[in-house]
């Protein structure tokens, strides 16, 4: 039973982990919210767990991904993030603004955040 639990937990993790060439996305939220729940964020279709202490680093498949939040008529695109192999792309989300605003550490063409 115990082995089954461990196996299922590892299987669940393996299915969440991006495979192949990967890069990293760092999401910073400002200000750091401690008692209030921040906006729900999505990387493409995956829901991002609320960043702990205003900072989350996530492994992502190489390519361009969409960072979105919940809007009135569904998901609202905040910005696009270019993920490159073994590189980190940092995005800061200003959560007090409505809708939240995306600030890229480095800007590429067409307002895509780059590493």
């Amino acid at each position, binding site marked *: 039973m115990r082995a089954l*639990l*461990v196996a299922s*937990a590892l299987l669940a993790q393996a299915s969440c982990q991006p495979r192949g060439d990967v*890069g990293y996305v760092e999401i910073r939220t400002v200000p750091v919210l401690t008692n209030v729940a921040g906006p729900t964020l999505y990387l493409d279709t995956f829901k991002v767990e609320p*960043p702990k202490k205003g900072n989350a680093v996530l*492994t992502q498949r190489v390519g361009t991904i969409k960072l979105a939040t919940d809007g009135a008529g569904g998901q609202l695109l905040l910005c696009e993030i270019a993920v490159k192999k073994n*590189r980190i792309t940092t995005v800061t989300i200003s959560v007090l603004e409505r809708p939240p605003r995306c600030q890229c550490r480095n800007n590429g063409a067409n307002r895509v955040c780059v*590493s």
Partner: protein
Amino acid sequence: MIRRLAIRRLETGRRVAAALLLAAILPFSAASAQTPSQPDALTPVEEFSKQLEAFKKTIPDLNKKIEDSAASVDRWTDVGKARKEIEELRAIVGAALGAVTDNGAVSTLGTQALNHARTKLRALEQDTRFKPEEKQFLVDQWRRLREETERATEELGAARKEFAELLRTLQSNEDFIDELIQIRQAQKALEVIQRLTKDIRDASDQLKRLIGGIKPPGA
């Protein structure tokens, strides 16, 4: 001059890498000294502990690989080779960062272990099956486990931050080297244009001399 600048930049990167890595290792060694063995712990906590130990074991190897690669970058003045070395370093640091990212295996297990310890503690506090002293013993054990798991996940957070910073340092070094390569290529292009201009000027002079030498019949 450009090469010297590149090397200086890489040396700075290497020192930063070593310092950051040391900072990443120290909390882990401190944690392993504090953590006693937990034979009675349940699956998520045990599994997290096992994964964390495995990750900690990879740190000395990682440190050596970074040191070796950084040393060879220092020896080379060839920007192409230096860029390749930095790419390799990024792959090493990227792998370490991948293990501790928020959606990585160790962090996910850490969250699960912490949730399990908290749930278990809440359930035990309301449990009426045991004698008060037995219940107190179990609650104390789970409190200790919860606190240690909290500390371990915080240390993972610190490692995550440091590896991310290290990767950024390597990226900026690589970007700097890329800029140096672009300067060198622009310099080569300029030399080609200068040579071409000189050739055209020489041809023009020859043509002028030729035209100047032409005398109309009867002149």
